[in-house]
């Protein structure tokens, strides 16, 4: 390390930091935490949608869903790889996920109760994720920025698919329409929480935001992104013919933005701290898969070593 460019100069010039460059330990740790949390979210995020693979109501939707969940696994892999350029390895990060020392996005602690939830996740959750992630394509850390470009491209495809699925249902039977409305009712507020706590006021987060902004990791404040998301999403809800579950939602001519109601930050913190509808389920499912597969991973390593020995034996 350290044979690359000068960190402060690179940041100042809004250029990319690469793994070979020297960087402050805080920067490294912040990135590891953020990229890992992002990777974990992709992996845990396979569960709520994966829950519907075997039950998708048409074969076309089943195919779309399998492909989407598969993409999430792929995103997890790019992101773990990006984190690995910072000198950690995937198994270490997974251990931290499994033991609760690293988090994943709280949105995945909500259950997918109906088929429409699959569409709603695409529309709202992926929609919010993209809003958060597009600025990360310009993140100061090169490997993360490049991973995000690919991720964002696929996510925006998923977002459109989710919307299209809901749109199809919204023109269907009364019960299909009701499913769409119900899903929107349940996912709207959690989606707004995805932008994190407010930047100011009593519910504000830990104040890491300023440092992340200075480092070019974060580009916009939480509330700014949240507002952009609301402004983008309200017209889409209108197109679906549904009502978003917020009586305070109305266009503010003066601001040129949609006003919206107060978010239940108590719920946000409660779910974040472990008492959400599915926290235990998600982690248990993930840990189970990991433990069930331990013997397989060990065998792969043993086989690989044997093969190498054999090759060396053949050479010698």
């Amino acid at each position: 390390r350290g044979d690359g460019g000068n960190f402060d100069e690179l940041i100042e010039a809004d250029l990319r930091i690469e793994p070979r460059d020297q960087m402050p330990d805080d920067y490294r740790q912040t990135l590891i935490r953020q990229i890992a949390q992002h990777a974990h979210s992709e992996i845990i995020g396979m569960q709520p949608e994966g829950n519907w693979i075997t039950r998708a109501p048409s074969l076309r939707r089943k195919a779309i869903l399998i492909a989407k969940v598969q993409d999430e696994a792929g995103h997890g892999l790019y992101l773990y790889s990006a984190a690995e350029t910072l000198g950690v390895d995937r198994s270490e990060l997974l251990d931290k996920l499994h033991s609760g020392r690293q988090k994943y996005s709280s949105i995945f602690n909500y259950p997918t109760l109906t088929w429409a939830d699959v569409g709603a996740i695409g529309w709202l959750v992926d929609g919010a994720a993209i809003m958060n992630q597009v600025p990360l394509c310009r993140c100061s850390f090169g490997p993360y920025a490049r991973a995000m470009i690919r991720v964002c491209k696929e996510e925006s495809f998923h977002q459109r698919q989710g919307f299209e699925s809901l749109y199809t249902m919204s023109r269907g039977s009364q019960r299909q329409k009701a499913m769409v409305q119900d899903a929107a009712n349940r996912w709207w507020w959690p989606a707004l929480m995805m932008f994190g706590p407010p930047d100011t006021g009593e519910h504000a987060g830990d104040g890491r935001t300023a440092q992340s902004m200075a480092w070019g990791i974060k580009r916009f404040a939480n509330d700014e992104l949240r507002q952009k998301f609301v402004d983008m999403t309200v017209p889409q809800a209108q197109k679906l013919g549904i009502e978003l579950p917020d009586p305070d939602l109305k266009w503010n001519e003066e601001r040129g933005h949609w006003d919206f109601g107060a978010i239940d930050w108590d719920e946000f913190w409660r779910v974040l701290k472990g008492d959400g509808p599915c926290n235990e389920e998600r982690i248990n499912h993930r840990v189970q898969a990991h433990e069930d597969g331990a013997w397989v991973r060990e065998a792969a390593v043993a086989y690989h070593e044997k093969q190498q020995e054999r090759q060396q034996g053949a050479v010698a």
Partner: protein
Amino acid sequence: SPAVADYLLGLADDALIYTQRLGEWVSRAPQIEEDMALGNIALDQLGQARALLTYVGSVDGTGRDEDALAYLRDEREFRNVHLVEQERGDFGFEMARLLWFSSYQYELYARLVDSADDQVAAIARKAIKEVAYHRDHATQWVLRLGDGTQQSHERMQAGLDAVATYVAELFDDSESARAAAESGVGVLPSSLADGAKAYVRSVTDEATLDYVDSARATARGGRIGVHSQVMGYLLAEMQHIHRSHPDATTW
């Protein structure tokens, strides 16, 4: 003819029902790469199922689309072999199942590219490439597990042993298969046995595993809709949402 449609339905149902079991692996695989790989294989199988179902619906005279065939038939009308409907076991069981099933499908589609039916031949041309990958994927894992650790060797062998009950049915000549072979549309399953078995044996040999292709009990009846107990539960899960919305015309 009805017999040929029934034969093709068997191929479609094999792929469709296996998709269900493979789909259960997604988010439960030993490593993330494998979540992707099994998802990929599931997608390929689903693609084959959809192409075949759509074609069956057009030739059997009922005009049913892929969803009507997948979601609105009852257990007795499904034509898949027992192998693909068995419950998800451990990864060793799955790789044993995949090795046998892909070895069978490889021989099958290698022959069906010359089917007298252009549609079937076209489906086979696409499928053969996919199935070659599935077979290779299973092969790699059987080698790693068979020649990995003591534990993995034992579990891989247990998987092969457990699957043995279901092997003979793959190569059983049903009445429909005979009619399909006679018409030149299909091939006799029994004619695929030598190739598939030789391939599996080559893999188990290299993997230091015992080759086994029969057991005390032999699964039978899938091609005439006599399934094992787990099939009803699989269908309940697969069909429930679709059947719960009889008034929905599109999803």
